[in-house]
């Protein structure tokens, strides 16, 4: 079966038609357990997320701050495998009918096999992949297989990206463009900063793809601020932190559902 890139595009277009930004949530697979992770994804969808990114936990998450590192550690110590990531995608999609992507460092796919990974992700109902350490120059093989299986290729752009490079990246990407709001790793921040708005404007000058902003957004006020200039607001560490801080799994699920509901209001407010 073909992947759900079209569902992703339709979902983002639907949010735009409603005059709002989309809410995109990130949660790692296998955290705190595989079933617990699936329940958490369902909870953020119930709370109001439009799209979910499922993190593939990695031993060496060089682009992640302490919160996601901790969750990845818990997941890996729990023995999470790529098959569990696929099951997470399958069950989250089957239960909600909403777009589910995978976010992963490149080495696990490289080792697992690009064809095998893309075929399995499409079969599970996945919509695509975000590949934060695969530069566009090294991405030809991935894109060939992603396209064949109907999966989006979401590239990350950064405030340091020059205009010519932005054009090169957005021409190769599909689904949406992930704009990093700041120079740094994942984690919650006091403020989102003004680099993000400039980056979104420069990115939009190169593409018709939706541009979604991630890194540092943790509450409804920040979400509203970002929603003022971006097509989507991506929140990761704040969800993971709610789960880490919760006294038990049920409280964690309730906490992430609440946060998703708050953020969903934020993306409809537009500061």
């Amino acid at each position, binding site marked *: 079966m073909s992947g759900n890139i079209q569902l992703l595009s339709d979902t983002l277009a639907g949010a735009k038609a409603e005059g709002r930004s989309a809410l995109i949530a990130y949660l790692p697979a296998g955290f705190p357990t595989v079933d617990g992770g699936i329940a958490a994804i369902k909870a953020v969808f119930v709370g109001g997320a439009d799209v979910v990114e499922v993190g593939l936990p990695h031993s060496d998450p060089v682009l992640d701050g302490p919160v996601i590192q901790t969750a990845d550690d818990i997941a890996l110590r729990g023995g999470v495998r790529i098959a569990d990531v696929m099951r997470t995608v399958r069950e989250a999609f089957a239960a909600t009918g909403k777009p589910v992507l995978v976010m992963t460092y490149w*080495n696990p796919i*490289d*080792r697992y096999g690009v064809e095998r990974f893309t075929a399995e992700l499409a079969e599970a109902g996945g919509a695509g992949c975000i590949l934060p350490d695969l530069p566009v120059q090294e991405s030809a093989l991935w894109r060939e297989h992603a396209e064949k299986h109907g999966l989006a290729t979401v590239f990350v752009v950064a405030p*340091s990206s020059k205009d010519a490079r932005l054009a090169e990246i957005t021409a190769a990407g599909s689904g949406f463009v992930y704009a*990093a709001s700041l120079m740094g790793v994942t984690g919650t921040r006091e403020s989102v900063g003004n680099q993000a708005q400039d980056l979104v404007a420069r990115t939009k000058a190169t593409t018709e793809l939706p541009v979604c902003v991630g890194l540092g957004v943790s509450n409804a006020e920040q979400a509203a601020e970002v929603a003022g200039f971006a097509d989507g607001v991506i929140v990761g560490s704040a969800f993971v932190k709610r789960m880490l801080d919760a006294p038990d799994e049920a409280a964690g699920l309730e906490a992430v559902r609440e946060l998703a509901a708050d953020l969903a209001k934020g993306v409809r407010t537009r500061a």
Partner: protein
Amino acid sequence: MPSEFFIPDPDGQVPSAEGYFGAFGGKFIPEALVAAVDEVAVEYDKAKADPEFARELDDLLVHYTGRPSSLTEVPRFAEHAGGARIFLKREDLNHTGSHKINNVLGQALLTKRMGKTRVIAETGAGQHGVATATACALFGLECTIYMGEIDTQRQALNVARMRMLGAEVIAVKSGSRTLKDAINEAFRDWVANVDHTHYLFGTVAGPHPFPAMVRDFHRVIGVEARRQILERAGRLPDAAVACVGGGSNAIGLFHAFIPDEGVRLIGCEPAGHGVETGEHAATLTAGEPGILHGSRSYVLQDEEGQITEPYSISAGLDYPGIGPEHSYLKDSGRGEYRAVTDDAAMQALRLLSRTEGIIPAIESAHALAGALEVGKELGKDGLIVVNLSGRGDKDMDTAARYFGLYDDGVDAVVAADADSENAEIEGDAK
């Protein structure tokens, strides 16, 4: 006048413009670092073409580092190697005590040229950290060193040296708390501070241009050794031997000998407790191609691409990756790589100390143990150059515990044998 000590690869066939050594290398980095890494490449190309850069670096290498380093014949040590002649390239005699200073001075000059004011670096054994802290003191640069928490304990002396030199040392507590995790943390810092910070990478791994640039700064080791051995022995060696962690001292020694087909290039990887135990860091012996820290090379990993935790008694070799040019040399057959256990390295460390009055770093002792084997294979007509990449002062605590040299009754890992200079060497150097 051509540069005498800064001698980049004159051939320049590898890497390719995209940074590939055959199937290995490349640039697998987050978008946030692309501009900075490209800037390093552009600035390095400009520096290579600028006689003023070479003049400045040469001046430092002579008057600050103390180049050229000696080539010392070690006949009493060589008696244990089947009678082959063994010469040591004495990078341990460089200022700061290892080969690392060659690369550090080059990149520190580059940092100044890029107008950056802060330097970060990873370190395993602390030798690269000490060299980096030294160069930062010399050039007035702010300096932060990332070091795995386990390594800060086993190389405490070097932590003190770095702090004495004015560097901030951050103990990294994530993952295996060794070199790989120090590199992860340095990358995280770099992404956040890239506008004014240069990541002074310490080995021939990482994204292009680091593998080629760091190699070029260390090429002087082999260029000197080749000239010196021709003067001293009247011929090229049968083998050039070096220890391999990330691979910088090895590529430095090997590179000038690559066109000399009769010279075997032998890298000694850390086998830890033995490759068969799983507790080792023998990347080329037991790894598979993959991506770690910005380039494709052999990597210790599981079948789903998770990096496995390495182990070696030597902090400087305790790394699950390897520079891409070594992977290229392995697959092309030009390089040979073998694994040396903790025990064999420690025995070689003691043997060199007691036969020649030279205490090597535990890293370099892996090369010495390899040379003892290679010597026996070559027989008495053999001629070997070993890169003595660093001195052992920093390792005295580990060695004292290993051999029971303290007076406090701490049990030795092996029985101390003060009367026999070659204790345990026979069965162990395998």
